[in-house]
């Protein structure tokens, strides 16, 4: 009987478990979970603070998931991997033997060495459920909150706590919000909407020094705050594989089968650096669907099956105060735009292919656009101009539609 060990208990781990169980129903699966919770939807923590979900509803799988999939969960921390003996050592003592190992260890917040950070009493990261529960205790109607980082994490945090605090200021060294996924014009549109909903910004300027309740900005401005949230960025947890002699870069380098350079060791999710088909290079794509799909591919291969995951692309769906934003692919090539007072659509085409898009506001049936990028559909085989205002299956040929809507897909 094969022994599987999974380090981590997030979405990639679930993908891995379900991938293993798709072919091996007998093997022994052990999950090492550093967080003392059953798997939950990590991106839901802001929705929890906002009151859009509850602790009960945040479970990513039903309560009997581990029992039904025959997994043993150990609440402990993996400290090292011995690739010769094929064991994982635990912080609590002992070592687990494995035949196949998946490192799905996720990422951790990156906290720059700010001067005076240790003088701040109420400071939080915003990555885990425990982070959210700790932050929740400090929320009150008079609290002045400073969020460092205007990326996905910082802004979702801002939305989540808006109705529960007095004032929110978000600062970022970048000159725009969501700088990793939006260009200048689109970012300005989203920023205006956030400001209309009561979020204040200091952009192109960030905190450099803290003294108890005062942050001093790079520009010399000062911001008084009661609660500090640090959402500057994240770092992939690569040490387990790095220290076992495996190849790591920003993430743990994996091939299309999610194998690391260490035999018998796989990696998946936010800690892994796999192939990004939108740029043709390896890159960490730290989004939930990617974590599941990588985990699932790893699991199938760990169980002796054949799975490759070669068409990963970055993509995001995120909303703030009722304004939806979707992005996908690479913003590479010629840009065409559809714009009105409700939003913006920008499409990027190159070499006869849709390479990427940014949609603000109108996002109906956007998956049709995403599939054009993912499947590398030649645009001369579809009527793409027709669909720029609203995505439609009308762009495809009649025969193509017959397959989609008249057959099993």
């Amino acid at each position, binding site marked *: 009987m094969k022994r599987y060990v999974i380090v981590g208990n997030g979405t990639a781990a679930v993908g891995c478990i379900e991938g293993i169980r798709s072919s091996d129903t007998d093997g022994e699966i052990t999950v090492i979970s550093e967080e003392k919770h059953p798997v939950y939807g990590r991106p839901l923590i802001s929705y929890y603070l906002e009151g859009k979900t509850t602790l009960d509803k945040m479970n*990513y799988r039903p309560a009997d998931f581990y029992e039904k999939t025959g997994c043993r969960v150990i609440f402990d921390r993996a400290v090292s991997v011995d690739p010769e003996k094929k064991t994982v050592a635990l912080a609590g003592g002992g070592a687990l033997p494995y035949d196949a190992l998946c490192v799905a260890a996720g990422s951790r917040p990156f906290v720059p060495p700010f001067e005076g950070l240790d003088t701040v009493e109420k400071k939080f990261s915003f990555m885990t459920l425990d982070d959210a529960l700790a932050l929740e205790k400090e929320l009150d109607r008079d609290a002045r909150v400073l969020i460092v980082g205007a990326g996905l994490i910082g802004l979702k945090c801002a939305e989540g706590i808006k109705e529960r605090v007095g004032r929110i200021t978000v600062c970022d060294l970048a000159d725009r919000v969501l700088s990793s996924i939006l260009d200048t014009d689109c970012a300005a549109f989203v920023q205006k909407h956030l400001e209309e909903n009561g979020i204040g910004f200091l952009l192109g300027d960030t905190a450099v020094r803290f003294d108890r309740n005062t942050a001093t900005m790079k520009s010399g401005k000062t911001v008084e705050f009661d609660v500090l949230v640090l959402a500057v960025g994240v770092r992939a947890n690569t040490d387990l594989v790095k220290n076992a002699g495996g190849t790591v870069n920003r993430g743990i380098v994996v091939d299309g089968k999610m194998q690391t350079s260490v035999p018998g060791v796989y990696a998946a999710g936010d800690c892994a650096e796999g192939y990004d088909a939108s740029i043709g290079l390896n890159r960490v794509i730290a989004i939930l669907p990617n974590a599941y799909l990588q985990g699932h591919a790893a699991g199938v291969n760990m169980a002796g099956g054949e799975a490759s995951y070669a068409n990963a692309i970055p993509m995001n769906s995120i909303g703030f105060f009722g304004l939806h934003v979707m992005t996908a692919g690479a913003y590479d090539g010629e840009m065409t735009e559809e714009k009105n007072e409700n939003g913006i659509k920008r499409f990027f085409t190159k070499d006869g292919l849709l390479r990427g898009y940014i949609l603000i506001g109108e996002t109906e049936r956007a998956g049709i656009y995403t599939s054009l990028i993912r499947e590398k559909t030649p645009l001369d085989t579809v009527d793409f101009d027709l669909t720029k205002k609203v995505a439609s299956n009308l762009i495809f040929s009649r025969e193509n539609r017959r397959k989609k809507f008249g057959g099993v897909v």
Partner: protein
Amino acid sequence: MKRVYVNEEWCLGCHLCEYNCAFANSGLSDMAFALKDKKIFPRIHVEGDDKITFAVSCRHCTDPLCVKSCIAGAISKKDGVVRIDRTKCVGCLTCVLVCPYGALAPGENGTMQKCELCLENACGAPACVTGCPNKAIVYEERGDGE
């Protein structure tokens, strides 16, 4: 398993499937009371132009991307049917981002809804099919993919 299939040559573009769907999932017994003067949120929609029309609803894919992408674990597949637990959905629209068919849309309260083949409502079989005046939408076995 049985799925809903569409023959666009026979579609009249009448949108009756949308109304029958909205009514079937309203939980009400009177169609006029359920739908009259209201914006409807059906789980099937008609696309097209002045020449071609066709209805689109969930394909219940053999390898559904929405299930693998849902950040809340709200979408699952059981007995071949892709279902959504709307009490878990937070309306992030990630399923809209990934569905290649454009088959999911938010309901009135902002959480997502999708075709569940009328297996969970009082109809027991797809109301869009039963009510299609030209048999452009059918509910049958084609191929053996689950």
